[in-house]
């Protein structure tokens, strides 16, 4: 660690991992509710469990991104963070707001929560992924703006690198497009149209700038390849991402009441969306093969390579599977979508946050890399979680294909629940694989506490 203030990233990363555990536990609850419908009913109905599962994911990824920004920006700018105190204050505000929101979801019926949090004054709740009460949404804006102020001031005072510019653009974009979550017209079609301006332009737009910047930063550090080379590829990859991804938003506008030309625009541009992910995979492997040093942190390198491969598979391949309008006509809103969502989120965003944590945490604990023993355990957790998510995706894909066949393609279509009853086997296998994922996650956490001889920080 080159600058003292980078250490503010540590609580962010710890909180991220803690919430990650919560996310997986609620995922397991939902997985069980798929096959044992009365599990934990009426204490935790499915809709509540799902809200907690997805919101925890978003919040912990945001913790990860913010921690990464606080770690990377000072090092890139060659300047101490503008205000470490502000960063720490924002950490506690975000943690308390996030925790209060989750407790609210679990303790109070959602309609009551809406009433207590002034949803009637400005209704924004009850839309997928944006279920947060108004005060939480405002809190997210405040925390994001304070962070942006903090890191932008830092970057302005110091060296301006491509990585910090891309990271700042990604984070600013994140804040700007979140503002669409405050727009909730009573016309459902308009509501859905602009809901995607937050959701799609986050995950297939500005978040990918953050992802690219984080990956590029770690690759420079662990491979020692010339910054010029890595940064020009970074620009080219994110250029491809936005060129294909912005109008690729059309793949969400096939069946929600929007004009039918979106079927063409959405299909054409999202068919190209795998290209930047493929470039990212090739890029990551190329840089590691051209490495000019043997960095002792093998685990971080593994996570970085894994991000390339899994984001290509999850976002690229599984996205392409159902993105063409004639295919999507049958698969829209089925387990196929769930399969894609799981692998894409894990492969792109979970893994890139774990990559930066894997690289930065040992640094913040005063060493270049963890002990051999600790790294071996971390790599075991890498493989357990990654292989689990692959199988979860495959089982959900199988479930989805059957669902589509029974409920939508067949000449004598089954009703939704009748079709679901036919595919319980795959849901059981998914739940079992989820337990292996949890085991991998537990190993991951244990790896932080495994001692042994470690290399001193350079």
């Amino acid at each position, binding site marked *: 660690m080159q600058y003292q203030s980078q250490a503010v990233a540590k609580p962010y990363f710890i909180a991220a991992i803690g919430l990650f555990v919560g996310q997986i536990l609620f995922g397991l609850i939902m997985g069980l509710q798929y096959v044992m419908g009365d599990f934990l009913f009426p204490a935790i109905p499915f809709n509540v469990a799902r809200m907690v599962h997805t919101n925890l994911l978003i919040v912990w990824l945001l913790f990860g991104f913010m921690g990464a920004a606080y770690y990377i920006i000072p090092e890139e700018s060659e300047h101490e963070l503008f205000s470490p105190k502000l960063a720490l204050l924002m950490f506690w505000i975000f943690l308390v707001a996030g925790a209060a929101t989750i407790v609210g979801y679990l303790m109070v019926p959602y309609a009551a929560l809406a009433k207590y949090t002034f949803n009637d004054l400005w209704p924004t709740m009850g839309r997928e992924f944006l279920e947060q009460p108004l005060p939480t949404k405002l809190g997210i804006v405040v925390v994001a703006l304070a962070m942006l102020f903090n890191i932008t001031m830092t970057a302005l005072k110091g060296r301006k690198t491509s990585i910090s510019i891309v990271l700042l653009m990604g984070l600013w974009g994140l804040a700007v497009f979140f503002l669409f979550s405050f727009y909730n017209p009573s016309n459902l079609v308009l509501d859905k149209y602009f809901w995607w301006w937050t959701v799609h332009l986050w995950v297939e737009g500005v978040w990918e700038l953050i992802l690219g910047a984080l990956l590029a930063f770690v690759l420079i550090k662990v491979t020692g390849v010339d910054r010029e080379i890595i940064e020009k590829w970074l*620009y080219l990859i994110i250029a491809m991402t936005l*060129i294909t991804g912005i109008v690729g938003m059309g793949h969400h506008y096939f069946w929600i009441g929007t004009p039918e030309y979106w079927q*063409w625009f959405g299909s054409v541009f999202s068919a190209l969306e795998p290209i930047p992910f493929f470039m990212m995979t090739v890029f990551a492997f190329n840089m590691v093969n051209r490495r000019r040093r043997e960095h002792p942190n093998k685990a971080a390198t593994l996570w970085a390579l894994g991000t390339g491969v899994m984001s290509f598979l999850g976002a690229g391949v599984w996205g392409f599977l159902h993105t063409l309008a004639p295919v999507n006509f049958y698969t829209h809103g089925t387990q196929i979508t769930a399969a894609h969502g799981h692998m894409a989120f894990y492969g792109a965003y979970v893994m890139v946050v774990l990559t930066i944590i894997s690289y930065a945490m040992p640094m913040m604990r005063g060493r270049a890399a963890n002990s051999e023993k600790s790294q071996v355990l971390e790599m075991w957790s890498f493989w357990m979680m990654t292989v689990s998510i692959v199988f979860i995706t495959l089982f959900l894909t199988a479930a989805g294909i059957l669902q589509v066949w029974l409920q939508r393609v067949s000449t004598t279509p089954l009703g939704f629940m009748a079709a679901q009853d036919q595919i319980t086997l795959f849901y059981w296998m998914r739940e079992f694989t989820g337990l292996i994922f949890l085991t991998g996650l537990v190993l991951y956490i244990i790896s932080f506490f495994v001692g042994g001889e470690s290399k001193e920080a350079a």
Partner: protein
Amino acid sequence: MSTQTLTLDSHKAGTPPGDLAIWFFIFAELLAFGIFFLSYAFARAHNVELFNESQQHLNRESGAVNTVVLITSSYFVVRAVAAIREGLSRQCAHWLAGAIGLGGVFLVIKLFEFHAKFSAGISLSTNTFYMFYLSLTIFHFMHVILGMVILAAVMLKARRGGYSAEHHTGVETGASYWHMVDLLWIILFPLVYVIR
């Protein structure tokens, strides 16, 4: 023509002119247009009559004039590259200005065409043919504007003497992009206006 042999001579086999990065961009653009063209063919095969009928209403004369305009502008760009290879910055800038001017002519003719269509109440949602016609031509129209912006940036730098006989990657980069814009129109025009 001497300019063309010059283009071929001054390059080692296997390396495209200009910055490699623009070729990634060109590749992505060609793919997007390529899939759009294929989709057009696919949609037409399912609805030949509608396509043939609607095609009658397009203004083929203005399309043909625009083809000549763009090809000429591409020739001007070739002359600009040839000029800078001789180190002639002023001539290079002049040829580029000519190409940009022709790009402007293209846009004006196109605007008349669009105006006629829009006044007739035609929009993206009129039918599948017009969806493709408007999408492809407007998408291409935006590319012409982008190409003109790029050429203008190159021209300004050339006028300031920013390129030389040895270092003129920027000119070749801009020229490559402009040729792509021209090429796309050469495919688009017969495909959408003529072939039936």
